């Protein structure tokens, strides 16, 4: 009962805090090994100084103000908060309960779908991600049903692979980024930061069955968006030529065709990557690739185009005919070619913690350690245009800071403290409360009383 009371007290204290403006507090995290990802580099024992939610100094010899709250990190490792580069977190709860899934548009729209409106700051998965050191999520919509957490053996196999007429929209919708801070009522930090699209087998299925159709449909959609942008007035008077897409979809594509909004393309086969690179150059689009299992085969072209890649660091099976070239070396080879790489987990529940382990795994297969740390912190921030605020420990940035028991990429390491915008986060979650409730020991009353 004591534990419960203290939790309630903590919760109410937290909600009070969140109602206030950011506390004018100075925090000094001292004595830890710092992996800054910023100009300060790696420091074997140093200080991160936080004031009013921002980082004000990082270094080995920082003078700590007298009024600062001291957080002792000696023997521990301090890093920027992890950034999930592409996830359904905050818009997905239980994959097999469709009502809890808001990561895809369904049948009524494509590009116009705006994932920001489904973001739920009270998702039970957010605390789980947060205690795993994740402080920021880039929420990217998916085509069709979201997630991939289903198990091979659960009887839910679906090889139908085709879509009914009227569902054909290659565009999955608009990307948002959300903070994972506790106690916020509005988690979206920035909406409309990208447009998601599937190519390859998935895109082809939406386009009616083949890749050629997908690319042609994509081009015509973008050309329609340009045409619509020049002819809004005519459209409103019914004097424009007809478009297969709605006004909302076309509006959403305008920043893409103007090169202001990056297009996140999920693509796997080397030849598909080549096609989209050419297409993006022709159309002057800003591109981000996700998946890219065969990216290493065309790494130089990707690097030359300056296109960053989001990689699932575990993907090494020829799971389909478009991933025959999958290898654990992918991240390392792309990085070596000069590509900016962000490492992600799979899209399902593992995503919460798998990103950092996948980055660690990539180290064993050719990705330098510093690049691996960057792949889960600074690089996703850079890729999504967020690096002015997050992604590294450097003065002026948000104080999203994690203190770890050791190397953040190591499986047996866990986070002991998490700060988001300088606020220390509660290190609890539904899963930890369950674990605590069923901690081995004798009791007279059922666990429900604990």
């Amino acid at each position, binding site marked *: 009962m004591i534990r419960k009371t203290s939790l309630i007290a903590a919760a109410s204290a937290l909600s009070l805090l969140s109602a206030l403006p950011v506390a004018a507090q100075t925090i000094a995290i001292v004595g830890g090994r710092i992996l800054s990802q910023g100009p300060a580099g790696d420091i074997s024992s140093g200080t991160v100084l936080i004031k009013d939610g921002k980082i004000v100094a990082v270094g080995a010899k920082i003078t700590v103000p007298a009024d600062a709250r001291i957080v002792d990190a000696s023997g521990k490792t301090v890093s920027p908060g992890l950034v999930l580069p592409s996830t359904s977190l905050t818009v997905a709860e239980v994959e097999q309960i469709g009502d809890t899934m808001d990561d895809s548009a369904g049948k009524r729209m494509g590009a116009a779908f705006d994932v920001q409106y489904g973001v739920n700051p009270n998702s039970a998965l957010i605390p789980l991600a947060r205690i795993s050191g994740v402080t920021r999520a880039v929420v990217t919509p998916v085509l069709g049903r979201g997630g991939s957490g289903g*198990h*091979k053996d659960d*009887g839910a196999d679906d090889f139908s692979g085709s879509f009914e007429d009227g569902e054909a929209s290659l565009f999955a919708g608009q990307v948002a980024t959300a903070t994972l801070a506790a106690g916020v009522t509005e988690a979206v930090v920035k909406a409309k930061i990208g447009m998601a699209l599937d190519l390859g087998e998935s895109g082809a299925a939406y386009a009616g069955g083949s890749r050629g159709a997908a690319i042609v449909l994509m081009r015509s959609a973008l050309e329609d968006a340009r045409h619509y942008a020049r002819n809004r007035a005519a459209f409103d008077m019914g004097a424009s030529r007809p478009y297969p897409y709605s006004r909302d979809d076309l509006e959403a594509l305008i920043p893409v065709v103007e090169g202001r909004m990056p297009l996140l393309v999920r693509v796997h086969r080397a030849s598909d990557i080549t096609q989209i690179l050419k297409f993006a150059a022709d159309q002057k689009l800003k591109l981000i690739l996700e998946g890219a299992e065969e990216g290493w085969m065309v790494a130089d072209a990707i690097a030359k185009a300056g296109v960053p890649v989001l990689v699932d660091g575990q993907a090494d099976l020829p799971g389909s005919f478009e991933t025959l070239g999958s290898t654990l070396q992918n991240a390392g080879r792309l990085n070596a070619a000069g590509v900016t790489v962000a490492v992600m987990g799979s899209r399902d529940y593992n995503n919460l913690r798998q990103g950092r382990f996948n980055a660690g795994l990539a*180290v064993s297969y050719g990705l330098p350690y510093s690049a691996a740390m960057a792949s889960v912190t600074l690089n996703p921030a850079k890729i999504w245009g967020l690096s002015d605020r997050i992604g590294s420990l450097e003065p002026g940035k948000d104080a999203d800071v994690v203190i770890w028991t050791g190397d953040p990429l*190591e*499986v047996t390491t*866990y986070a002991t403290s998490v700060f988001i915008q300088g606020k220390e986060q509660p290190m609890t979650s539904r899963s*930890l409360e369950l674990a605590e409730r*069923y901690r081995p020991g004798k009791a007279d009353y059922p666990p429900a009383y604990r």
Partner: protein
Amino acid sequence: MMHSPLLVRLALIATTVSLLSACVSVVSVAPSNKTDVTAKTSEAAKVAVVLPKGSDPKAGPAPFASTYRPLPSQLTALVGGHILTATGQEIDSGTVIMDGGKIVAVGKDVQAPAGAKIVDATGKWITPGIIDIHSHLGVYPSPGVESLSDGNEMTEPNTAHVWAEHSVWPQDPGFNRARAGGVTTLQILPGSANLFGGRSVTLKNVPAITTEGMKFPGAPYGLKMACGENPKRVYGHKGRSPSTRMGNVAGYRSAWIQAASYKRKWDDYRAKVAKGEKADPPERNLNLDTLSGVLAGEIRIQNHCYRADEMATMIDISREFGFKISVFHHSSEAYKIADLLAKEGICYATWADWAGFKMEAYDGIAENAAIGQKAGACVIIHSDDPIMTQHLNQEAGIAMGAGARMGLPVSRADAIAWITLNPAKGMGIDDKTGSLTPGKNADVVLWSGDPFSVYSTADTVFIDGAVVFDRKDPRYQPKSDFELGQPGEGVHP
């Protein structure tokens, strides 16, 4: 009764051969009196019922018998490595000797015998081969196309008659990936759409052209059962039973009643034949062969079951019909009944923290394994996934980290059993493999470092003392036929 002495069988055949067509087998009766073998045999032959081949579930050699033969091996000494035996020992700078496919010595003061191939294991770690008790390699292979998808016979809620080995595609590239992750033994299970999914098969993770060439000699069969959401969803959507959990339970119980009846018929029949009485043989039924094999204690229950309350219900059913559940799989809520599972001697196989993807997995927690370990339960980390199977050592590391976080640290010496000895126990092969114990099969992994580190790789993998994978030697980096001539490079870095 299961296998008659060869001599008796020959005698029987000799006395009855003129009566028989070429395609029959014989139900033989073992002599009860060794002093009068010939007379007894002749007498038995008179009453032996001649059944067409395949009609007696226990006649003749077991079908689809293993043709596995160990690859060539030599006397080998792994010297100076950090050893986790999986029997609770952690030995710094020790030696493992393998000879004739067996482990012959493990310890700190073990000397390499003359003529042994010496492998310098300084700075490396040595563990038993990893065992994945929940795999669908081969039955859900890569590429994951419909043509090769053979894991779930989703046509009847009770398909105890299907055998996973008849779906295994030995060319699945996933076998090679798993071996590069240190996996030496796998239990391949049918899917979980059905109440009774069918028989599992235990495989040695060696490249082979046939599934028989991978079958683990002497490994008992398992029967895949499934609780909860999958059966009720799959059949409920077809508009038939089960569509609820109570429908599931009725389905299990009805099947066990049939199985008990079938078993009794065969037992009665054999008893009568043994006494020289006239008897009509029951009609063989593949489904009930498997279920009655469970009742006879020959086939082990491998039960997909997430929720604590459902696991308890399954234990009640096992008591009602007198069988034993070997392992609960997935078992996301095992931590809620860790004491019960420890007391019942039922292992549970789970992930570190793969959970939340459906309601029955909603309470899955990363502390599941550590809490069970503390309660004294037989804990297993499994994969159910062709990617995770390559990283079971790291999955165990994640579960260790979660235990440490809540003040329930698990030592490396104990955690290694989660992926070696405990699955071997759950599969009934712990007398043959699963630990570095003299006399057991030399299924061994030489790791680049601490196996619970994200940075460690399986550098050399031995099965029955033979090198089956070597990260640095292309001669020991097998590739599936499927991967030849493809843009990938196969598994190996």
